[in-house]
C-alpha cells in the first residue's frame, strides 16, 4: 500500500455532519438522493476549482531550482522546530544562537540576523522590521499546520516580491478544508535537561459546502540548550528556556463558483528567558514576545485560465525586553513594536495557447517603534509592480521572463528582472539556464538606527543613511531528471554576485564616553558565491522506501571596497590612541572580507531515509552534516554532525475517532559533540509524541 502523507482529513466526524456545511445548507442541491439513478450527475455544472493561480508550476518548468519539503519529509524528519526543516535543503545552513533563536541562511554572510532570504507564509511575508529577520520561534504556526514548503534557491523577485535576494522560503499551510474533526497532539522530551520540552496542540476543523475552517490551539515549552563551561564564559549560567502559547485559524468561504475568501488569523505569546549573571547589560530576565496576524485573500475565478487574487495582511509583533543592569543601577529597555500592512493584487491569465501571464501590484506599510533603536517611531511605504510570462515556445522549450519594479520607500526605484529557459530533452529530463537580478532593501535598522542606552551613555549603532539596496546577480544552469523508476536528480551550478553588501562599519562616536567603537551601516563589500548543489531522491517498493540525499559545495569570497568609516572620520582621541583604535576598527572590517569565504559551509550534506516497516509502522533515519562556519559576529561553529532516528506506530482506525499515532524521536543519536557557535552543546535528546483523533 502506498503510504504518502496527504492532506489528512482526519479525525472524528459523522458522514452527515461532513456533508452538511457549517451554515446549514443541504448538500444534495442538484442531485437525486438515495438509490434513484438520474442523469443529473452527468449534466451538473461545476465551478472552476483548479484555476490558474491555484496550479503551481511543476518542477521541470520553474525558472529557479526549487526544493519541496512535503508532509512526508516533515514527519519522517522528526524535527520539532520549523527552522530545522531547512537542513533538508541543499546549501542551506541552520543554527541556533540559543534555544529559541534559530537562524536559517542560504549562501554565506551568516550572522545572528540572517536577512537575505524572503520568507512567506501563505503569501504573507514574515521577514519583519526593524532587522528584517524572521522570528521563527514565535510564528503562530505549528509543524503540522504545514502542507509543504517550497524553497526557491536563487533570486525570484518577479514571483515572490521584495527581498527575494538569495532565495525564498515559501511555507504553504494546509487548506481550511484539510481537517474535519478534532485531534490532540502531545510531545514530551528531555531537551536541555531540567523540565525538558513539552508541546500540546489541539485542533478542530469542519468542512462544508460553502465554508471550511480549522482551528489550532497550542503551547510549547523548552528548556533550551546547555552551555558548558569550557566554552564562552559569558554564557555560563545562561538561561535560554522558553514557553509559547499560540493559536491560529483558517476559514475559507466559497459562496459560489467564482469567489473564494480565505481568512487567516494567528496569535502567539512567548516568554523567553535570557541573560546571564556575568552580563552587565543583560542579567537573567525574560523577554516577552507577542505576535498576531490577520490576512484575507479573495480569489475570483473568471474561467479555467484566468483569475484575480487580492491579498491583504497585517502583521504585528511586540517584544518587551526590560531589565536593570546587573549592578542594579540602570533601567534598560529594548522594546520593539512592529506593524506591517500589505495589499497585493495579482491577475493570472492565459494569453493564447502558449503564454501564461501573471502580473500585479502591491503596496506595503511598515512601522517600527523601538525607542532604543530609533530616535522616533519609523514608518516606510513601499510599492511594487511585477509581471512574469511563462512562454511555451515549443512543447520542449519554455521561457520564463519577468521583472519587478520596486519603490523601496527610501528614495530608490529598482528593477529586478529574471530570464530562465527550460529545455525538456525528453519528457523526463530538463535542462535549465537562468539569469536574474534581485535587490534587498536596507532594513529600517540599517538605514535609520540610533541604537543607544541613554542611561549608560552608550552608543552602539548610528546609521548615516543613504544606503543603496544590495544587488544580487545570479547565473545558474541546472538539470532535473524525474524518472518513472522512482529516481529523481536535481543538480544546479551557480555563480552569484552580490554588490553593495551592507555591513556594520565601526567608527567612534564623538560623544562616546568610553570611546569604544560604535557602528554605522554602509555598502561596504562585494561578494561572490560559486557552487554546485543538488538532490537525489529515490523511492522504491511502491514508495514504501524513500531516500533523499542533499549535497552542496560552495566557495565564497568578499572584496572590501571604499574606505572604512573609521579611516575617514575626524580623530576622536589623541593621535597615538586614535591610531590604535583605527587599527582595531580596520582589522575588524578587513577580517570580515577575509573570513567571508568561511561564512557558509564549504561542504554540507544530508540524508533522509524513511521506510514503512509494516502496514502501521514507519521508521526513518536522518543524517545532517554541516561544515565549519565562521559567523560574522566573530564566532566559529565547528563541523556539526547529527543522526536523528524516528519510529512511529499507528493505532486504532486510521483517520477516524480513536485512531492516532505514537512516535519516538531520538536526535543526535550517536551523541556527536555538536557545539553551536554560541557555545551551546546539542546533546542527545529524545521525544515521545502521540496524536489522538477524537
Amino acid at each position: 500500500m502506498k503510504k504518502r502523507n496527504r492532506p489528512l482529513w482526519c479525525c472524528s466526524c459523522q458522514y452527515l455532519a461532513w456533508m452538511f456545511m457549517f451554515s446549514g445548507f443541504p448538500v444534495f442541491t442538484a442531485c437525486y438522493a438515495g438509490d434513484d439513478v438520474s442523469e443529473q450527475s452527468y449534466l451538473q455544472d461545476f465551478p472552476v476549482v483548479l484555476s490558474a493561480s491555484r496550479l503551481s508550476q511543476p518542477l521541470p518548468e520553474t525558472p529557479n531550482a526549487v526544493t519541496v519539503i512535503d508532509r512526508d519529509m516533515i514527519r519522517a524528519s522528526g524535527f520539532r522546530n520549523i527552522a530545522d526543516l531547512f537542513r533538508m535543503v541543499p546549501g542551506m545552513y541552520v543554527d541556533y544562537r540559543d534555544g529559541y533563536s534559530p537562524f536559517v541562511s542560504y549562501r554565506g554572510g551568516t550572522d545572528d540576523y540572517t536577512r537575505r532570504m524572503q520568507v512567506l507564509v501563505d503569501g504573507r511575508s514574515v521577514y519583519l522590521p526593524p532587522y528584517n529577520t524572521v522570528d521563527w520561534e514565535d510564528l503562530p504556526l505549528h509543524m503540522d499546520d504545514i502542507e509543504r514548503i517550497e524553497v526557491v534557491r536563487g533570486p525570484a523577485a518577479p514571483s515572490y516580491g521584495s527581498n527575494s535576494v538569495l532565495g525564498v522560503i515559501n511555507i504553504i499551510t494546509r487548506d481550511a478544508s484539510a481537517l474535519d474533526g478534532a485531534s490532540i497532539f502531545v510531545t514530551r522530551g528531555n531537551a536541555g535537561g531540567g523540565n525538558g520540552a513539552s508541546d500540546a496542540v489541539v485542533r478542530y476543523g469542519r468542512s462544508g459546502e460553502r465554508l471550511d475552517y480549522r482551528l489550532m490551539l497550542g503551547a510549547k515549552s523548552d528548556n533550551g540548550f546547555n552551555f558548558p563551561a569550557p566554552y564562552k564564559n559569558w554564557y555560563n549560567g545562561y538561561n535560554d528556556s522558553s514557553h509559547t502559547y499560540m493559536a491560529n485559524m483558517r476559514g475559507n468561504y466559497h459562496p459560489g463558483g467564482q469567489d473564494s475568501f480565505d481568512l487567516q488569523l494567528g496569535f502567539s505569546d512567548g516568554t523567553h528567558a535570557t541573560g546571564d549573571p556575568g552580563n552587565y547589560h543583560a542579567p537573567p530576565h525574560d523577554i516577552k514576545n507577542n505576535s498576531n496576524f490577520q490576512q484575507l485573500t479573495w480569489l475570483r475565478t473568471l474561467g479555467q485560465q484566468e483569475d484575480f487574487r487580492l491579498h491583504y495582511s497585517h502583521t504585528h509583533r511586540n517584544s518587551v525586553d526590560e531589565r536593570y543592569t546587573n549592578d542594579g543601577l540602570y533601567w534598560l529597555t529594548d522594546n520593539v513594536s512592529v506593524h506591517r500592512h500589505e495589499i497585493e493584487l495579482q491577475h493570472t491569465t492565459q494569453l493564447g495557447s502558449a503564454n501564461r501571464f501573471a502580473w500585479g501590484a502591491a503596496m506595503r506599510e511598515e512601522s517600527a517603534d523601538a525607542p532604543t533603536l530609533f530616535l522616533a517611531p519609523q514608518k516606510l511605504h513601499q510599492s511594487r509592480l511585477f509581471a512574469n510570462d511563462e512562454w511555451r515556445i515549443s512543447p520542449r522549450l519554455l521561457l520564463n521572463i519577468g521583472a519587478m519594479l520596486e519603490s523601496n520607500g527610501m528614495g530608490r526605484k529598482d528593477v529586478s528582472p529574471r530570464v530562465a529557459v527550460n529545455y525538456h530533452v525528453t519528457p523526463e529530463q530538463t535542462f535549465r539556464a537562468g539569469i536574474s537580478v534581485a535587490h534587498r532593501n536596507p532594513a529600517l535598522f540599517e538605514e535609520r538606527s540610533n541604537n543607544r542606552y541613554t542611561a549608560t551613555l552608550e552608543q552602539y549603532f548610528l546609521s548615516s543613511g543613504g544606503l543603496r539596496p544590495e544587488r544580487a546577480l545570479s547565473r545558474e544552469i541546472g538539470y532535473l531528471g524525474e524518472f518513472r523508476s522512482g529516481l529523481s536528480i536535481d543538480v544546479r551550478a551557480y555563480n552569484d554576485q552580490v554588490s553593495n553588501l551592507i555591513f556594520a562599519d565601526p567608527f567612534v562616536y564623538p560623544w562616546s564616553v568610553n570611546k569604544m567603537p560604535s557602528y554605522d551601516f554602509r555598502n561596504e563589500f562585494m561578494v561572490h558565491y560559486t557552487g554546485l548543489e543538488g538532490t537525489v531522491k529515490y523511492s522504491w517498493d511502491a514508495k514504501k522506501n524513500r531516500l533523499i540525499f542533499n549535497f552542496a559545495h560552495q566557495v565564497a569570497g568578499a572584496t572590501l571596497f571604499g574606505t572604512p568609516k573609521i579611516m575617514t572620520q575626524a580623530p576622536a582621541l589623541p593621535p597615538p590612541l586614535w591610531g590604535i583604535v583605527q587599527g582595531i576598527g580596520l582589522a575588524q572590517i578587513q577580517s570580515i572580507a577575509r573570513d567571508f569565504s568561511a561564512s557558509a559551509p564549504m561542504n554540507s550534506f544530508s540524508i533522509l531515509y524513511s521506510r514503512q516497516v509494516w502496514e502501521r509502522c514507519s521508521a526513518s533515519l536522518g543524517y545532517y552534516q554541516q561544515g565549519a562556519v565562521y559567523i560574522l559576529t566573530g564566532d566559529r561553529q565547528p563541523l556539526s554532525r547529527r543522526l536523528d532516528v524516528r519510529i512511529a506506530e499507528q493505532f486504532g482506525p486510521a483517520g477516524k475517532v480513536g485512531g492516532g499515532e505514537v512516535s519516538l524521536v531520538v536526535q543526535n543519536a550517536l551523541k556527536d559533540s555538536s557545539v553551536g557557535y554560541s557555545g551551546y552543546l546539542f546533546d542527545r535528546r529524545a521525544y515521545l509524541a502521540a496524536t489522538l483523533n477524537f
Partner: protein
Amino acid sequence: MRALCALAAVFLWLFIPAGHLHAAPLAVTVVLSESSGAYLEFSDALREKLLNKNIYLNVVDDPGEAIPEQGLIVAVGMKAATAIAGSSAHAILNVFVPRAGYEKLLHDFPLRAASKTCSAIFLDQPAERQVRLIEALLPGKRSIGILLDSYPPDDLVQLRQRMAKHKLTLHEHKIGPDFPLHVALQHVLDSSDVLLALPDAAIYNSSTIRNILLASYHSGDPVIGFSPSYVKAGALAAVFSTPAQIAAQAAMAIQRYGETRMLPAAQHSQQFEVSTNEQVSRSLGLAIKSAEELHQEISAIMGDEP
C-alpha cells in the same frame, strides 16, 4: 354500392406500397425532463437532424402534460422517462438516461421490457471506454481508486471486470456512517495513483467537488471525470457523449422507426468525445496526449468492445 367501396378500400390498402402508405409525416413528441441547458441543446440538435426528413417534431417540456398515444415519444431524462413509461404511449425512445436508470425503469414497468418499441440511448459511457481512456492517458499508472456509495452494483461489476481485463488494480472505498467521505478520500489517495470519479451523486456533487479536487491535486493524483464539467473544474480528463452526439444517434433511430416501426436495442452512445485539462496535466507534471489523439486511440480499439 357501400360494400363495393369498402372492397375497393381493402384492395388499395393491400396493394399500395408500404412506403407510400407511410408517406404521412411521422409524429415524434420529444418530452423534456427540464426546459433548460443540455435538454434544450438535445431537442435543438434533434430538430436540426430531422429537418426535411418527413417527420413532425413536437417538443414538450412538461413530462406531466398529456401526450399522444400514437407516434414515437422521445423521453429526455429520467423524469420524462418515468412519466412516459407509465403512460399509454406506444413507442418510446429514452435518452439522457443512465444504463442503470433504464434497467430500473424496465423493472418498474415490465410490459415495456417485453416491448420492441421501447429503447434507450444511454448517457453513461461503457466501462471499457473509461478504462481505455485511463490506459491511453496515463500508461504508467496502474492503481486506480474509486469512491462508492450508491453506485449501481451491475455497473461496478462491469468496471471490475474491465479493470481486471486490462490488468489495472482497482482500489474500492465505500463510504458510510463509519467511513466518512474525507477519510475514504484520504485512503483512496494514499493507495492509488488515479481517482476515477463515478456518477454517484452522494459523493460527487456541488458540495464536495471542490474539496475532492483540491485534496487530489495536493496529493498529486489526477482525477478522471465523466463529463466536461469535471474537466473544467479541474479533473485531468473525461470521456462523455455530447447532447448533439446523442441527438444524432436518436435521429437515426427515429428514422429507422419511421421506416420499420422498430427501435434499435438499447445501447450506449456510439459517438463520444474526450476532453483534457492541459493546465492540470502540466502542473501535475504529466505528459499526456491531446484529446484528439486520445479519441483516436480509443476509437481505434473500440472494435472489440462487447
